[in-house]
């Protein structure tokens, strides 16, 4: 990454996850110098890259309320007032956020998405009791939260013929879950922010924050930046950043959940999301927008390995698969193409809500530390944060030339042959398939590089190249060739994810 020599900004946002990029994009509506610094070599490189990928409301949110009780103090009652408190930011932004995405967010940012029918299933008495809890909770909140149907076994098996035939009853909602690919949301937000003038510095880990009269200086590995305001959106690393600005009265706690991706040859095995209401685990089989089945086992094991502890544990993967098989018996361990751990961040002060407040020691340093779900509420959160900045003196003038629209890289795989031929006529490299598993062409990879990808993972998250069944073992060297050629670097300088993560070394070199 080039080291830019810009040293001044009005606002520095630390962290390019969904929180940081949503705030950056919101700020780009105004005439204000905003800068995002990110320690990784790509955006979306912390919690945002390893989540299930659902934007949801209604029935699934009711499920989430039940789930939420796991992280709340023991004995928290399963009531609507305890679990759906509209005075809490988390609740409010989830309510608003779903509609923000649904009514325009996706279209503006050109983010691929799919409404996924949701079935909550029950096969024994415990689960039937949980279904009753869902109904009770949903009805006491009302509105969309009660807008689901009770369905019998016959209906369930018509909707999803491949679920466990022992199922007896269930709940069904048609439009309460939207499948997305989480890094794409962050990439879209960041690209639109860049279009509108925000600067991003990658590989720019923050090493210190210094106060200087009227302004403050953010020191990074890519040089210092002078700024009026700082937003701490460092996600799992927010505690360390907050300490640099004078302290905090909260701790972070990290929970790991295994996420497993199955081979796309299983497309069609399920049509939407299916889950048990609680035990065993909260398993969701999502036929996400890319036709892979995704399993999220919602273990919520506390990890002491910190926010970077995303490694998977073979035993958890096997257990998760065994549990998922109780939902859809036809899947097997042989279908796994990828598995990783999502790290979920909670604060110890109120695990049920976000932290959005100025540092007690520094009135121009704003901590924005959301708990999950981060993506659903990102847009209202960003508006709220920008409002807080104006309250403490940030001057904002609306830009006349703000462009809310961002165009995605064309996805060759989903185009018609006519549309493919139009692309190939423009640039023949759209006809050369590099990643065969996911049918990603050289043209798409070049687009990704033009938009800022400098690493193999940067290309992967923008194009899906090497996300298929061979996991980059065929196309990895070819993508590295293209990166080296386009960036004018030797092959051995190409990395997987920045720093010293070199993909290869020259023979003869030590």
């Amino acid at each position: 990454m080039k080291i830019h020599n810009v040293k001044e900004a009005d606002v520095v946002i630390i962290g390019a996850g969904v929180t940081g990029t949503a705030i950056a994009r919101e700020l780009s509506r105004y005439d204000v110098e905003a800068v995002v610094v990110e320690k990784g070599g790509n955006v979306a490189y912390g919690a945002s890259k390893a989540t299930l990928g659902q934007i949801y409301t209604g029935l699934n949110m009711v499920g989430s309320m039940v789930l939420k009780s796991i992280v709340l103090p023991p004995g928290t009652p399963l009531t609507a007032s305890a679990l759906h408190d509209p005075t809490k930011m988390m609740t409010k932004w989830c309510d608003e956020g779903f509609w923000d995405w649904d009514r325009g967010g996706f279209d503006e940012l050109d983010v691929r998405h799919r409404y996924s029918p949701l079935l909550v299933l029950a096969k024994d008495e415990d689960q039937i009791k949980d279904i009753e809890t869902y109904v009770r909770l949903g009805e006491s909140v009302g509105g969309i939260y009660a807008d689901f149907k009770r369905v019998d076994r016959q209906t369930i098996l018509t909707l999803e013929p491949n679920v466990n035939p022992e199922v007896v009853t269930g709940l069904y909602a048609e439009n309460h879950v939207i499948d997305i690919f989480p890094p794409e949301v962050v990439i879209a937000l960041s690209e639109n922010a860049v279009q509108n003038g925000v600067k991003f510095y990658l590989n720019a880990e923050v090493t210190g924050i210094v106060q200087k009269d009227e302004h403050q200086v953010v020191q990074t590995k890519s040089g210092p930046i002078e700024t009026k305001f700082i937003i701490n959106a460092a996600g799992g690393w927010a505690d360390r950043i907050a300490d640099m600005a004078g302290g905090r009265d909260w701790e972070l706690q990290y929970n790991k959940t295994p996420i497993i991706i199955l081979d796309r040859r299983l497309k069609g095995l399920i049509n939407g999301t299916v889950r048990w209401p609680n035990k065993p685990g909260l398993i969701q089989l999502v036929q996400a927008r890319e036709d892979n089945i995704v399993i999220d086992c919602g273990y919520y094991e506390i990890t002491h390995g910190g926010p970077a502890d995303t490694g998977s544990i073979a035993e958890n993967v096997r257990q998760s698969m065994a549990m998922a098989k109780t939902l859809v018996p036809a899947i097997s361990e042989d279908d796994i193409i990828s598995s990783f751990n999502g790290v979920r961040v909670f604060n110890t002060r109120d695990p049920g809500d976000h932290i959005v407040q100025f540092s007690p020691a520094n009135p121009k340093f704003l901590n924005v530390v959301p708990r999950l779900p981060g993506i659903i509420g990102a847009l209202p959160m960003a508006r709220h944060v920008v409002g807080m900045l104006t309250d403490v003196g940030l001057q904002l003038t609306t830009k006349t030339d703000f462009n809310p629209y961002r165009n995605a890289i064309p996805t060759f795989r989903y185009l018609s042959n006519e549309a493919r031929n139009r692309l190939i006529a423009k640039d023949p490299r759209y006809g050369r398939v590099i990643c065969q598993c996911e049918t990603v062409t050289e043209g798409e990879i070049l687009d990704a590089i033009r938009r800022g990808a400098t690493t193999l993972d940067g290309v992967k998250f923008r194009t899906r190249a090497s996300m298929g069944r061979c996991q980059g073992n065929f196309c990895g060297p070819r993508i590295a060739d293209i990166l080296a050629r386009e960036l004018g670097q030797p092959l051995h300088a190409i990395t997987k994810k920045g720093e010293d993560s070199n993909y290869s070394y020259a023979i003869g070199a030590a």
Partner: protein
Amino acid sequence: MIKESQTKLDVAVIGGGPAGITACLEFSKSPHLDVALFESEAELGGIPRTCHLRFFGFRDQNHVYTGTAYAQTLSRKVRRTPIRIYTDATVIKLIPGDKCEPHRIDVSTPEGIGTFKTRFIILATGCYEASRSARIISGNRPPGVITTGTLMELVNLRGQKPGHKALIVGSEHVSLSSVLTLKRAGVEVVGMVEKDQDVHTYALVAGAMKSFYRFPIFRDTSINAILGHTRVEEVELYERREERIFRVSCDTVVLTGEFRSYAPLIDHTAIERDPLTFGPAVDTDFMTSIPGIFCAGNVMRGANMHDLCALEGKRVARCILDSPASDRWDTADMSIPLQTQYPVRFVVPQKVGPKAMAPRSPYWLHTGYSLQMAHTIRNPVLEAWSGEERVWKRSFSKLIGNARIPLPVHKFDWRRVDKSKGLIVKLGTEPL
């Protein structure tokens, strides 16, 4: 653009490796056929192209080449034929035709998307090695965890090495080539890990290599975790017999073997898939469940030697040349299913047609039925059963895990086979 007039074919061969090219060479003997070969890379040759070792061509070319020279030889030969060759051309969709209708393929090239109608298809798309995730290994996901295929691409085609100290996972034949490839690149081999009690290759050769290059072979040992964030730093191993957990310091992990069929084109088609090989299930003629769509080479199973794949390509071409298309629909259901029971991993072909039952079947030596075991077994007896009847048995001194073991189906006692009950190949319970 691919011209409209060229889009009708007799045979589309998908994959320009040894199997695909050799099939084309055989077709070129019948010049009246319109045959096209599609290869997604810029050059023909397939996997042998990436291998510097000199053991190629022995059984199909009667000559010994390096992999690179072998690939060049095949490529040169096929380019001299009238076969149409499309490189940089990836088949992105396969739509089987209805009964007696031609099949359709969509091909992506830098000149545009071509749509071809064809009477026959030969799938020769090869195999791949199970990735790190597919093997369910704990730990973070740093770079430096690669397969033999990637290793050979980096070293032999690009003059690159994946790291400085490598641990090899697996002990199949291909694991030995990865030792030689690593050594060629100047990479230290810190060990070879095999979860089975015995290695999955010739024990003598593995032993000689171990002494010559001075690396340990950890048998009965599995990987607990790969440690490190931006680089591999250590690998944690678990030795079962001693119940010992220990760590090996390295920056590269080479995952070898555990081959699977690479056949994304059959996904979401009516072509029957064998969950054991991950590839299409085939009959004696290497024909899939859809008449007119055939397989050749390692797309049927990973991984046979390149020259056997080449011979399979030749044989499948002969099958197509020797019998008219209309016969296919009539004979498609005449085959008997052949199944396996653990620790027999799989058998290919998965069905037995009348041809294979003939007492002197011409095909059994190199291109006949073969199976693989899940692990190495000493002094086993293999048996074939049809219902309650044992129709074949043979004792072996050793069956090597994940290696090709020929299965002489022509020696089965076919008079006692009950077609309705099918056949199953399994380990005998008592020694002979």
